[in-house]
């Protein structure tokens, strides 16, 4: 099966919009409602969060959505069955912490990802050396891209190493912060400029700080696209029609 993500990124396109949301939020079955709405709104790729009880790298908005999703009964198995009945047309990434993936079983997890049309994984607490020694072979067997993060504190040497080990995009955190916790984007411009000047072979998407069209356009001056998570979750919280809210939000960005 083709990897939709590597297909999309083949020619290093610009202005990619990646929307993140948490599986099973606000309601258990909203995972696919949102996926369809985002596909129809022509987002370039979708990142779906697997809720975890202890999401260390996430700020309050995504933490809260994870908690509600778990209360709704969300699980990895449930997510796979939702996607199986609604095969994604856009590239789909799953973002999930290591422990639930390990309990599911790494090989079983990657196999199911491929079966239901998931193209890439972001596992924020999977360090690169563990990926290389224990995970890489299985990811490659099932044609799953692994997405690494870099931050303003990441050394140039390590960024080059990550570039060499990436087969999707590099996720550049625009300021050292948990998701959704800072408001000022301008501070990130210097950093993204430096990344641009490094002329990496892997496309770069930036996230953790993008809220509106202005931020998105600013980010796209330096890198291939941006990821919007916390702000999107706020937009679909406490609304009557999440599809409409999703569509309107995407239209306001791109």
């Amino acid at each position, binding site marked *: 099966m083709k990897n939709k993500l590597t297909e999309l990124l083949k020619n290093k396109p610009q202005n990619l919009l990646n929307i993140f949301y948490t599986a099973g939020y606000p309601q258990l079955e909203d995972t696919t409602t949102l996926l369809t709405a985002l596909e129809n709104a022509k987002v370039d790729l979708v990142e779906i969060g697997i809720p*975890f*009880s*202890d*999401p*260390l*790298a996430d*700020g309050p908005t995504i*933490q809260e959505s994870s*908690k509600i999703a*778990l209360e709704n009964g969300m*699980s*990895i*198995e449930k997510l796979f069955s939702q996607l199986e009945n609604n095969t994604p047309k856009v590239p789909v990434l799953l973002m999930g*912490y*290591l*422990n*639930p*993936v*390990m*309990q*599911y079983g790494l090989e079983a997890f990657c196999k199911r990802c491929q079966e239901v049309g998931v193209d890439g994984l972001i596992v*924020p*607490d*999977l*360090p690169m050396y*563990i990926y290389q020694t224990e995970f890489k072979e299985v990811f490659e067997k099932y044609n799953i891209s692994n997405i*690494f*993060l*870099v*931050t303003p*504190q*990441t*050394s140039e040497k*390590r960024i080059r190493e990550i570039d060499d080990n990436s087969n999707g995009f590099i996720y550049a*955190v625009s300021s*050292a*912060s*948990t998701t959704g*916790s800072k408001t000022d984007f301008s501070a990130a411009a210097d950093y993204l400029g430096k990344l641009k000047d490094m002329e990496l072979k892997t496309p770069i998407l930036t996230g953790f700080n993008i809220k509106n069209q202005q931020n998105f356009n600013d980010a796209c001056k330096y890198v291939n696209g941006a990821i919007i998570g916390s702000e999107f979750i706020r937009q679909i919280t406490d609304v009557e029609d999440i599809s409409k809210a999703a569509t309107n939000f995407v239209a306001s960005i791109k």
Partner: protein
Amino acid sequence: MSYQVNEQGFYGEFGGAFIPELLYPNIEELQENYLAIEKSPEFQEEFHQLLKDYVGRPTPLFLAKRLSEKYGAQIWLKREDLCHTGAHKVNNTIGQILLAEKLGKKRIIAETGAGQHGVATATVCALKGLECIVYMGEKDIERQAPNVARMKMLGATVRPATSGSKTLKDATNEAMRDWINNPEDTHYIIGSVVGPHPYPDMVARYQSVISEEIKKQMDGLPDYVIACVGGGSNAMGAFYHFLDDKEVKLIGVEAAGLGVDTDKTAATLTLGTPGVLHASRSIMMQDKDGQVIEPHSISAGLDYPGIGPAHAWLKVSDRAQYMAVTDAEALEAAVEVSRLEGIIPALETAHAFSVLKDLDLKPTDRVVINLSGRGDKDMNTYMEELNLL
């Protein structure tokens, strides 16, 4: 077999540094420097001087005659309750504050359960004039009010963790998030032998002064060393220099809460399975989907769903034995120690005493119990549970 950490930060299959990339520079800095700093003569000199003149070490090893008589063995108490601030926790915070100073950090964060580690951190921050922020579960803030007041009096800011079970695990999450958001000027003083490498080894080294002293204070080896375990720092400190002395039986005592057959428990090693929590692979309490189960113990310091990776390895490799004690048994032991020896132990420590009744002790057996903390902070709970008013 080695019970020490290897170069990759693992104890057997457990340990490691499962950290978000956001924390990589912080952890790398610690990994590259902690041993060299600890071994430097300046560090050693200041560390030992502070342990002596500020903490009050060496702490006594006391022969508890009435307890010995009751249980038919020689029972010795390692008096960590006599440390400045009232528990062993300060051994580690002294070490880490010196490390933070050497690394040029200006801001200190910590998590705390019972508040003992928070107080010990606030204390050394005051000593060194560094800003101190302590994360504490909202539920623990309620049940450990005296320690919250102590931290505030020492000039620390106490920030409530309001997510999840609102206890130690959630305070740890919040502290890690703070560190992610403040990667350059901040040192995170983890209070137990948990978290990413090098913390489990670093904290064990700073706490190892406990067993170093026991060895010097005893004539020959003890038959048993017993300590309570939440994350496991006082137990690791008490076991450390006996790990290679196979004839010494090491016993860790965890909190069974309402019982290991109930869902209100914190008996991680008794009930848990391998997994990754707070950036290390260890044994943890989790459901079939890998979600962390919220623990329960009457003692805030043991109310944790994970355990240090070294303890997981000691259990799996049969070097140490782990037992679980209920809330009710711990309370009973607390009363017994108070009335037989005139020492009111912390609720955490009371768990360790409670296994004396379950061991097959001989009159010649020499048992060391690490009396990790005093019970002042638990008076509210004791008053309520024991009808002392």
